[in-house]
């Protein structure tokens, strides 16, 4: 009796702790912090992965999504948003998370195939049906009287790709004359009446609010707009040249190790490279890396002359410092309302 009297408070305390553990859910939850236009992609992908994971392990996984401009999302993760994985628009944004918050190693891009980019995309033009302003190529979007919708490159990954696609075109056209390319990009942004923070916002501005003559957007976003809002309202114009966009993905090491979700997070990203993941990407108008799957969907994707950021600009770090950092080229050429 004495022993019981001595030990029962410990047992009660242990019972309280156990009950506390039980009260926390045993199911796994992941947070995927992604860029703006990938809502539909990850809606399909998450359902497929959850089914696969449950069949394979018996565990239930719930994936929560956060979407927004890629730069904005990266800053949110740096500021403490507990992302298990990030699937952003460009490698630089994930590099920032590695550099500033030290949440994953600097060599994160080497951990998955194709520089951790399971699919690619590019930048195209979405115009109104009938193309009333006769927009055929980059020179047409800088014409006076043409209203261009594109997001803010300070917050949106897609906007940075679009800016670089236009700049790259201008460099190629003018024999790498940077001053002429700068003038070209200044004329383009003079035609931009509204800057949304992300690609989806720009689609809303153009397609739903009826603002602008042309939307510079992700290829997948353009296809989705035509599919969802009607091919009787919009058409896609493929410019003569554009940029190869490689949106990367990464596990956020410090978060998954703290939350104990590493295994499922790694499996989640690897599933993007598998057959099912590549099919889902293609069905959502992302260009799959898998050559067999790409061949299956080849007619869906227009042939387009693509350059890479490394070819023309020497990589993201250089681009960020020159163009998008405070006081960079974009800040110098863009004056709202002027």
């Amino acid at each position: 009796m004495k022993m019981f009297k001595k030990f029962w408070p410990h047992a009660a305390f242990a019972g309280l702790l156990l009950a506390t553990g039980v009260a926390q859910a045993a199911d796994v939850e992941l947070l995927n912090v992604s860029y703006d236009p990938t809502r539909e992609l990850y809606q399909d992908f998450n359902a497929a992965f959850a089914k696969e994971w449950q069949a394979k392990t018996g565990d239930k996984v719930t994936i929560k999504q956060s979407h927004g401009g890629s730069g904005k999302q990266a800053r949110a993760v740096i500021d403490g948003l507990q992302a298990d994985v990030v699937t952003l628009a460009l490698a630089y944004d994930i590099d920032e998370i590695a550099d500033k918050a030290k949440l994953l190693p600097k060599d994160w891009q080497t951990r998955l195939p194709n520089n951790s980019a399971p699919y690619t995309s590019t930048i195209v033009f979405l115009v109104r049906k009938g193309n009333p302003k006769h927009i055929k190529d980059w020179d047409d979007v800088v014409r006076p009287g043409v209203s261009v919708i594109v997001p803010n490159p300070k917050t949106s990954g897609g906007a940075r790709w679009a800016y670089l696609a236009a700049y790259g075109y201008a460099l190629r056209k003018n024999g790498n004359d940077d001053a002429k390319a700068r003038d070209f990009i200044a004329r383009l942004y003079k035609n931009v009446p509204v800057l949304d923070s992300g690609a989806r916002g720009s689609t809303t501005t153009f397609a739903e609010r009826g603002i602008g003559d042309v939307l510079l957007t992700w290829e997948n976003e353009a296809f989705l707009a035509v599919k969802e809002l009607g091919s009787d309202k919009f058409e896609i114009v493929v410019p003569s040249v554009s940029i190869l966009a490689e949106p990367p993905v990464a596990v956020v090491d410090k978060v998954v190790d703290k939350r104990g979700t590493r295994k499922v997070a790694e499996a989640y990203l690897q599933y993007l490279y598998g057959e099912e993941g590549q099919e889902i990407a293609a069905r959502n108008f992302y260009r799959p890396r898998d050559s067999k799957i790409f061949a299956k969907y080849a007619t869906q994707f227009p042939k387009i002359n693509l350059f890479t950021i490394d070819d023309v600009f020497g990589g993201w770090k250089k681009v960020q410092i020159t163009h998008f950092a405070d006081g960079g080229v974009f800040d110098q050429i863009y004056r709202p309302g002027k």
Partner: protein
Amino acid sequence: MKNGKKLWLTAGLLAGALAQPAWSASDDEINQLKQQIEDLDQKIRILQRQQEIDKENAEAKKKDTPVVVLDKKGFALQSGDKENELRVNGYIQADYRNYSYTGSPVDNFLIRRARLAITGKFGKYFTFNLTPSWDNNAAGLQDAYVDAAFYDWFKVRAGQFKEPFGLERLQSSANTSFVETAFTTGLTPNYDDGVQLFGIVLGGTTDYQLAVVNGNSLGGGSATSAAGTLGDNNSSKGWVARVFTSPFKNGDTDALKGLGVGIAYENAEVGNTTAGVISITPATVAPFAYLGNTVVGSDIKRWSPQGYWYYGPFGLLGEYVHVEQDVTRTAGALTNTRTLESNAWQTLFSWAITGDDVSYNGLKPKKPFRIGSDGFGAVELVARYNVYNLDDASFVGAPGATTQTQVFNTALASPAAAVGKARDLGIGINWYLTGNYKIQASYDITTFDGGAGVFNATTNTVTDRATERVLFTRFQLGW
């Protein structure tokens, strides 16, 4: 004929005039107008969209911007998304006591309580309370705990907190109807260290608490017990359980919504001590004490049925507390061990004569006091009667004690210093000027039976202790 020609001519001219538009615009002009309208339409759409984007950005920024709040509920710092909060509340009680009986303490002003409650929450589940105090000019610590509230019905508290036992004890000291609490509260445990499981169940009508604590909180009238401290002197732990329900809270009968009943039980493990659970009078005097070399056993049991009823301006609170403790005194070969049972009960009545609603959690005047307006605040009349019974066995010597000396040396208490019963009648008036400021005045008359008065050597008897008559006044500011 002439008229017919005229008629045809007129008709012809008329038809010609009707066929011609009143004003003729060229296609260019029309196209220009169309273009202007389209341009204007675009400008309006752009403005509207810019407004939408600005609003979205402002909303997003709001989530990151902390909010500072300073109002009658105190000072608070909140994160933009309201997930995190730091709040500072507190109260000051400035009292005056006037004693009018022989042998009383001196009349005095005192800072009865001065407390700063720092509370906060971090995220969805976790809150904390840190309340330092300077009661009676002595620094101390009241609450110091963290809560994890996973569900309404399942919450965990760890740290230092009021043991979930006495009904009046669990009321905030800022909300009590009288300046000093009743005998019942003196028998209930106060702050202790431990861990508590608690929650609200049955549609929000019923609270439950189950705590494992050091068990060393003896009671008394302050954060540290009348005779003991919060330090633990043994490895055994106490436990306390309480259930309190307001079964008609969600019902249709308004008069019954404020009815609540409950019961609490504690098995404390105080370790062998010379202290003991002893209540105090409203004048904060202990009318009872054990004799020297008396040891109170570690195992103390208490239980308390309790309840209240509040309806509009009327309130009634009642509780009964029963305490069992083993007490031993040894003198030579004689040992006197007895399980002493003491108890106390109280009935407290309150009436807000200004028609405001009284409640267990205090009173907020409907029309706060303001010079120049008809707001006078709220006035509450209060009355109570409470009784404290000590076990007569306290005064009995050890079995086998045959001489007066043996009885004296083994009795657990002496009538010269300890009463057998105390009764208190109190009346009071409270003026709540605002929700933050109140003035209280109460008068308590406490009578005693069975000793602790003056010893008459001739008759060898002890007269009863002198009746205590105390006037309490208090100015209190809380936020």
